[in-house]
């Protein structure tokens, strides 16, 4: 299977080709079946690949062909198959498969369904390319490809202005990050003479000895790319707006797969980052700040999808925190568990929206009786997000927070625990407002109906994942996932593995669980017993509340500080174009018109005048020619 690894991305690509060529005219809803079958096969192959890698196969490179070869520069289309990429491939294909199946129900009534099922498998193809690539250049192809598909899918309902604007925003903010990736890639080639992962990581030691500054710059440039793709501060604000896309897109791209590309990039480059001086600390601090920052915004949002979006930003912050404190395994572990429970939360939200056509939680409520499957699966996912044992989120998040403590970053640990409280609170609030209490809009409530099986079965399967996926990391720090992933990410420089002290671990776990319970307790107290009453509390803390509701005014800050600056620069450029470039051309045209205007007088329209000028011309020719021939004139 390892030799045929390229089949895994080839299947979604084939589904894309079929759907995009034949979908519009002939296939309609059948596009969904084609895409789902392709993804199902892909998932099976991915599981086979995983089993084979599990069987002790170390890192292998499978080269398809040489893509770019110029002088010393080589960028082959080659897959690096090792535990890390095998793990990612399984996560990506399995979640994608379930979301494809779900979309068959969710998008059934949409006229653009063939478009949807063209871009979705194309996205999966690029995502697999990204995680399989064995060099930075090929990874960049996948990186840009997922960005493109993200743009197309956020703007899927482009007839309305909001999705179109959100798509543009996502694309532009990602481009800023991509600039960092490009700089990192170029510097990598100039410094290491290669862009292949293993070449670069082999030489990290040498470069660290001779040129540590360049190494730091490379790492920070790559991290800028990661902040763009993974929606970390300061490039986070595109992700909540991306919720304008169809909900399965939010689940697949903006929760489970694409946004984790930045985490994957940093985890893959662990040897580079570990040797790059302060870069890793920057990663950890940015992650921690983002986690806390996004969680505070999620506390007060009323749009159910926006709560989930900020939650995603926050959880991605946890992953970067883990990378920063030297626990890449925990980061990838959390990436995997988060993919399950966050995809589930989004698909559950989608099920609610599908049932009620409403995503403002102030108009929902009491839906647990109407949507039992959605309710129970989302409850599992919410528990996982709030890190309640033994659900998946507990094992991975606890490990991140614990790693921050044991690796000597007590402040980051504190931030992690505090964010845990906030996380538990906002998830409690979201689920309570949606599913409990009296229906606030009776009309909506009466018309709500549980989604069809094609949507609920993926929910149930994801719920099983969200409940059980954590056990691959049991026991803590010595579980299956650790033994499996460590060879990939611990090549050089990561923190030396020490036998965990179970007393400390138990204490840290207790702190995490306590944080989760406190958050849930506050949530229940506020929304069930109304003590303190949330509305009164919002009024009492007016300025703070407004700050959070307006997302810390980050969008406004960007609009005023950056967007207007850039607009001014574009205005100057525009003026130069209009007045100088166009002006020159227009002056020239004006001159020609002037000359032509004078010359037109020669065209009298009188035949006699033309005849006269012909005769005069002939006469002139005869005189001149004859003059020369007779020697009257001389040359």
């Amino acid at each position, binding site marked *: 299977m390892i030799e045929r690894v390229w089949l895994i991305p080839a299947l979604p690509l084939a589904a894309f080709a079929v759907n995009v060529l034949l979908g519009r005219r002939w296939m309609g809803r059948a596009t969904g079946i084609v895409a789902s079958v392709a993804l199902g096969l892909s998932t099976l192959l991915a599981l086979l690949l995983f089993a084979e890698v599990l069987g002790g196969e170390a890192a292998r490179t499978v080269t398809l062909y040489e893509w770019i070869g110029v002088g010393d520069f080589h960028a082959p289309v080659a897959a690096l198959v090792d535990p890390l990429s095998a793990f990612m491939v399984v996560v990506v294909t399995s979640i994608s498969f379930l979301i494809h199946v779900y979309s068959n129900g969710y998008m059934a009534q949409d006229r653009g369904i063939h478009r949807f099922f063209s871009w979705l498998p194309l996205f999966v193809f690029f995502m697999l390319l990204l995680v399989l690539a064995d060099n930075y250049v090929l990874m960049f192809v996948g990186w840009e490809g997922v960005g493109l598909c993200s743009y197309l899918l956020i703007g899927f309902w482009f007839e309305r202005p909001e999705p179109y604007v959100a798509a543009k925003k996502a694309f532009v903010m990602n481009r800023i990050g991509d600039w960092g990736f490009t700089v990192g890639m170029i510097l990598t080639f100039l410094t290491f003479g290669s862009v292949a992962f293993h070449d670069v990581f082999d030489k990290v030691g040498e470069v660290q000895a001779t040129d540590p500054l360049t190494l730091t710059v490379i790492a920070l440039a790559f991290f800028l790319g990661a902040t763009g793709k993974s929606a970390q501060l300061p490039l986070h604000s595109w992700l909540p707006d991306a919720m304008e896309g169809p909900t399965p897109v939010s689940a697949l791209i903006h929760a489970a797969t694409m946004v984790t590309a930045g985490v994957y990039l940093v985890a893959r480059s662990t040897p580079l980052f570990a040797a790059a001086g302060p870069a890793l600390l920057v990663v950890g601090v940015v992650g921690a700040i983002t986690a806390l920052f996004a969680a505070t915004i999620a506390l007060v949002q009323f749009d159910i999808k926006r709560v989930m979006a900020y939650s995603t930003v926050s959880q991605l912050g946890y992953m970067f925190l883990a990378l920063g404190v030297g626990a890449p395994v925990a980061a990838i572990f959390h990436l995997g568990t988060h993919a399950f429970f966050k995809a589930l939360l989004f698909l559950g939200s989608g099920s609610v929206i599908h049932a009620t056509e409403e995503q403002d939680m102030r108009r929902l409520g009491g839906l647990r009786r109407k949507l039992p499957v959605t309710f129970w699966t989302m409850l599992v996912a919410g528990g996982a997000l709030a890190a309640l044992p033994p659900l998946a989120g507990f094992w991975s998040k606890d490990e991140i927070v614990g790693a921050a403590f044991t690796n000597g970053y007590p402040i980051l640990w504190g931030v992690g625990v505090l964010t845990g409280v906030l996380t538990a609170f906002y998830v409690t609030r979201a689920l309570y407002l949606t599913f409990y209490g009296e229906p606030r809009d009776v009309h909506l409530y009466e018309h709500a109906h549980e989604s069809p099986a094609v949507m609920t079965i993926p929910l149930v399967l994801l719920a099983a994942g969200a409940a059980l996926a954590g056990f691959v990391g049991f026991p803590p720090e010595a579980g299956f996932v650790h033994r499996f992933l460590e060879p990939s990410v611990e090549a050089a420089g990561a923190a030396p593995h020490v036998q965990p002290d179970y007393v400390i671990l138990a204490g840290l776990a207790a702190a995490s669980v306590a944080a989760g319970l406190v958050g849930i307790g506050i949530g229940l107290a506020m929304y069930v017993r109304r003590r303190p009453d949330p509305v009164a509390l919002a009024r009492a803390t007016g300025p703070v509340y407004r700050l959070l509701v307006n997302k810390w005014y980050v969008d406004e800050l960007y609009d005023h500080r950056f967007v207007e600056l850039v607009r001014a620069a574009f205005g100057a450029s525009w003026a130069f174009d209009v007045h100088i470039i166009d002006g020159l051309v227009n002056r020239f045209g004006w001159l020609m018109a002037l000359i032509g205007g004078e*010359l*037109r*007088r*020669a*065209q*009298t*329209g*009188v*035949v*006699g005048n033309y*005849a*006269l000028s012909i*005769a005069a011309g002939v006469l002139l020719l005869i005189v001149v020619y004859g003059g020369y021939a007779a020697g009257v004139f001389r040359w």
Partner: protein
Amino acid sequence: MTSLVPLGAFIAVSAALFFIGLGGVLVRRNAVVILMCVELMLNAANLAFVAFSRRLGVLDERGSVFVVFVFVVAAAEVAVGLAIVLALYRNRPTVDVDEVTEIKG
């Protein structure tokens, strides 16, 4: 073979015909008369061709072949020219070229 009439006389007649024709083209306003004057110019050229041809040999074919060509061109020219005059006359009852200045720039 010699000729009683010297070459110069032919050329003189030819030139006279040509300039009468040219003068007519420039001065006259009636389109039909202008066409006739053009014919006059063409035949002046024919006369010169034949004279030179005769001078160079017994009707040297290089000159006389051109005369035939000129006949053909003249016939075509008259056909087209008269057609234009006719079309003009149908659109407006005049054949005075000075009154037709639609292509004035």
